[in-house]
């Protein structure tokens, strides 16, 4: 096993870390930085609960080595809100539409939706559903989540 010193910007803050080669980005975020908003649901890239942004693009953090994040910017659910603790427009839309139940898929769902609205500010319902295909939810039936994303898009802010 090799040990690697890396520099990662996480939610705007520069972090200097030492990680073993087999540590995933997910474990680094949760265990080394205490950013437990990002969830471990399958460790196989299937459920999307661990989705984070790498340089503005969503990836499954369970399927990426921590050391690969060296020199990159990582955004987690903890970095989505506004600095004053207010919810972002996308989070507000989730609240208004009651698009949350158990909340375990929510962080990954928000990250995927946020990334969608960044690259496609006015998605159709099909596009929203397709963008969320890698984020499983067992509680809501997806309806309210899709409506929330649509609503956030219509208001023109993520």
């Amino acid at each position: 096993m090799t040990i690697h010193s890396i520099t990662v910007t996480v939610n705007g803050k520069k972090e200097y870390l030492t990680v073993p080669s087999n540590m995933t980005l997910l474990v680094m975020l949760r265990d080394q930085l205490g950013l437990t908003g990002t969830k471990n649901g399958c460790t196989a890239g299937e459920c999307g609960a661990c989705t984070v942004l790498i340089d503005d693009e969503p990836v499954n953090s369970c399927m990426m080595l921590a050391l690969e994040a060296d020199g990159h910017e990582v955004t987690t659910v903890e970095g989505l809100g506004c600095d004053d603790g207010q919810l972002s427009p996308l989070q507000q839309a989730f609240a208004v539409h009651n698009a949350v139940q158990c909340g375990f898929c929510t962080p990954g769902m928000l990250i995927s939706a946020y990334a969608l609205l960044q690259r496609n500010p006015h998605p159709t319902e099909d596009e929203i559903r397709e963008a969320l295909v890698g984020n499983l939810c067992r509680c809501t039936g997806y309806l309210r989540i899709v409506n929330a994303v649509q609503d956030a898009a219509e208001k023109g802010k993520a």
Partner: protein
Amino acid sequence: MLARPGLPTFDYIVPATPNQVVQLLQEHGNAVRLMMGGTDLFVRMRQGAIRPKILVDVKHLPGMRDIQHDERAGLTVGAAVTMNEVASHAPVRAHYPLLAEAAHSVASYQVRNRATMGGNLCNASPCADTAPAVLVLEGDLVLYGASGERAVPAEEFFVGPGSTVIQPDEFLTGIRFPLPPNGSQGKYMKLGRSKAGDLALVGVAVLGFPDKTAASGYGFRIALGSVAPVPLRVAAAEKVLALRPPDENAFALAAEKAMQAAAPIDDVRASAAYQKAMVRTFTLRGLQKVWGQLCNT
């Protein structure tokens, strides 16, 4: 048995040059695995299917992440180019839309940000979504090894499930595509258990183009994924379409030939009988779609 909770231990190396990769392969043999996106590799490492001592991350080598398009020479896709990069690349979408479509059909958006073209092909899973597209676009796989570079036609690349012609000291650096035939239209049809995001139970790539050398006036190329030990071209179906006028009867006969060429097995995802029937359905639908596109342009 069940998969491990996390990745087992390994050394991680970023090689500086292609020759260093070759050297590592020669020195360590099976103990080395090359990694790019890891989306397939990590799953298999957790399952214990493979336990490499060293992972060599080749995606940072020059050219590995580049897409080069030349209107006269064709397209080269670096082995480590991600599915999303292929799917969203403007020249690929314009000139090789079939390839963009196949790349887009892989898993989920966030997986496609990591999964690479090269990984999809080198893992040689029969259900690799990009393989049928590469077959009908007649791409060459560019391998680099101790004796330098060589290009292998896609049709010769796959040997069996998980097995390719890549030699122990070689690795894939990219996929080279010739110019697509003039006026060609393509379609990738995929059957999954969900409407999107699943592995292919059946994948059918169809490419059609006007062809003065063919009796029918049109050339068609058809390739199947997920229904045989390797992705395969269906010469018998293509021949039907070269000879017969492109109508519903010809399409139905070609689809029938495609079904006959398929040799799927019963597994947890689908039965052989269903997969065979779906090869016919999806080949027929693919031909109808491509024909429709040909008539509209």
